[in-house]
């Protein structure tokens, strides 16, 4: 291990990044641009939000209320529950995005003019559909209430969204922090292309004939991409805060530290895999197939992950994005710091350090 050689690789890699416009774009602005695209795509996509309802009242008015919710098809009734647990179960299975609980005295309270309250449970900020759904649900309820109370002034239906983070779900863009893990795939793509480009061009064969160690080579590649990864993540965070007006409630240094861990994990896995890949084309496809697509569906960014069982859960655990999505949401919406997100941080560290170590062990200094 020689710090001189490590530094030589680091400096060379920084120069490559700075001098190649495509790479520079990949590791600075491209995540922010993708974030804008995804945010608007998800925010305004007319997506059917699946609703589970536990109607404890079973009155004419409660049935009318439910019918008004699903009238235009933007909500669909996916579950008729008979208790908290049935709604929770359906939510765990990913059958429903939102659960609505209509109290037994719903009709009576409204008729008495006292106003009723319905409870809404959304699985935290965990799905994009839920985030959009809460806003829409509030609008629907208000419309229904207005029709009932054209004469009186008091709002007769109060929506009590469960837990304290409902306030954030009201924002159309509450899901933006949860999208950051997906767009932060770009540094992985960039490093995969850089490594395979060096192999394709033949420079790697020259490096084989030098005293470079696997550790120096891999760490020398990793560090510049982590550095630029933090830059691009910061741009994405700034965009979320300034443009999408999502408040960052958690401590900034903690978020950045956990971002470094995420980059370490995703780049570490990429470095390991790239040891077995010869061409840039293959590298690109593998990164897309391995990270991008599963991160979309299995990390909990767009769909809830069944946390108890299932084969998807194992894959989900291995995906760095699954842990980082909890981190970005926690830091932004729930004011969580690294102490509260220690488990996720540790997972990311392990997901990074194991493949990185394997990458060193399996590194072949031969053509």
């Amino acid at each position, binding site marked *: 291990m020689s710090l001189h050689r490590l530094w030589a690789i680091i400096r060379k890699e920084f120069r490559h990044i700075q001098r190649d416009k495509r790479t520079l774009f990949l590791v600075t602005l491209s995540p922010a641009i993708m974030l804008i695209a995804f945010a608007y795509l998800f925010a305004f996509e007319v997506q059917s939000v699946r609703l589970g309802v536990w109607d404890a009242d079973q009155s004419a008015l409660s049935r009318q209320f439910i019918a008004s919710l699903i009238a235009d098809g933007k909500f669909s009734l996916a579950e008729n529950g008979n208790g908290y647990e049935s709604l929770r179960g359906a939510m765990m299975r990913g059958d429903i995005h939102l659960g609505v609980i209509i109290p037994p005295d719903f009709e009576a309270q409204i008729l008495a003019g006292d106003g009723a309250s319905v409870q809404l449970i959304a699985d935290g900020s965990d799905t994009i559909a839920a985030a959009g759904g809460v806003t829409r649900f509030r609008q629907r309820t208000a419309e229904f209430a207005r029709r009932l109370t054209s004469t009186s002034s008091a709002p007769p239906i109060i929506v009590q969204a469960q837990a304290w983070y409902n306030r954030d779900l009201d924002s159309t863009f509450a899901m933006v922090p949860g999208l950051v893990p997906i767009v932060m795939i770009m540094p992985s793509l960039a490093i995969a292309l850089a490594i395979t480009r060096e192999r394709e061009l033949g420079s790697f*064969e*020259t490096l084989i*004939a*030098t005293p470079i160690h696997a550790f120096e080579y891999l760490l020398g590649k990793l560090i510049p991409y982590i550095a630029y990864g933090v830059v691009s993540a910061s741009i994405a965070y700034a965009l979320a805060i300034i443009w999408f007006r999502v408040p960052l409630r958690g401590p900034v240094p903690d978020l950045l530290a956990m971002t470094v861990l995420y980059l370490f994990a995703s780049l570490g896995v990429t470095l390991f895999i790239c040891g077995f890949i010869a061409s840039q084309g293959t590298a690109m496809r593998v990164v897309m197939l391995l990270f991008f697509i599963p991160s979309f569906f299995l990390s909990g960014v767009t769909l809830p992950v069944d946390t108890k069982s299932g084969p998807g859960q194992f894959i989900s655990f291995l995906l760095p994005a699954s842990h980082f999505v909890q981190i970005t949401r926690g830091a932004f919406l729930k004011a969580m710091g690294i102490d509260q997100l220690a488990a996720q941080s540790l997972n990311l560290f392990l997901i990074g350090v194991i493949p990185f170590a394997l990458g060193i062990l399996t590194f072949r200094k031969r053509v």
Partner: protein
Amino acid sequence: MTGQITATQLSKTFRKNQAVRGVSFDIAPGEIYGLIGPDGAGKTTTIRMLAGVMDPTRGTARVNGLDTTRQAEQLRAHVGYMAQKFSLYGDLSVRENIEFYADIFGVRGKARAERIARLLKFARLDQFQDRDAGVLSGGMKKKLGLACAFIHRPRVLFLDEPTNGVDPISRREFWDILSDLHIEGVTIFISTAYLDEAERCSRVGLMYRGEIIREGTPIALRQLVQGDLLAIITPDLQIAENVAQKLPGIFEVQVYGDRLHVFVDAGATRAREIEIALVAAGATIKQIRPAAPHLQEAFISLISHL
């Protein structure tokens, strides 16, 4: 074997393709050894195994007494290697490229600046040191590659077709640099498809289909050619070739640009016969004379008799 580069029965098989079939070398310190052969002969594979960047399927090689497979990492400091498909970092300047390899090879302190300056001068690149390597001419790239391979002053240089695709003037310049290194006592193992370059080597191995079919000094190899060589200059090459091939006492006919090279059993008598036959066939003959075979003719002749 006590040579600086030794190999015994070195072989490499890719799937079913036997690229190198049991080649052996014993190369003394200070030699320039030329590995000559057509495309696909196995030159690159051989050099890779000797330079410790590819493991042989069978056989062993030693450079500076170190096993190129088991002691490959110890070998790195003593060996410079310029791959056939070598590539500099096109987005780094000439100086940055050399500095990178200097750092990787642990060339530090005062030696670093001195050596880089000297190599830049040596490779006649000192005026271009701030230019991006990617925009250099082909010949300059090769010289920079050589400078990078030599930054740690190795005792042995492996160069795989370093002058391929380079104009003749740059090729000569490259060889002048190699001569200087040779004078400094560096052992050079070089592969090339240009036979004229082989004439500048101290020893040449002719590689064909994975085997070294002949080995010796350029002079010795030239003398392996069977019979005498006649050079015939004629504007009617096609006719001359067809006619000459059918005459008695002819081993072989090769066309070179504006002339025909004919290998015959006895130069003096056959020259007369050929001249008569060609004139009878209506070909004009500008000149017909005995010639000394170059390595080129020797090699083609050797291969065609295998």
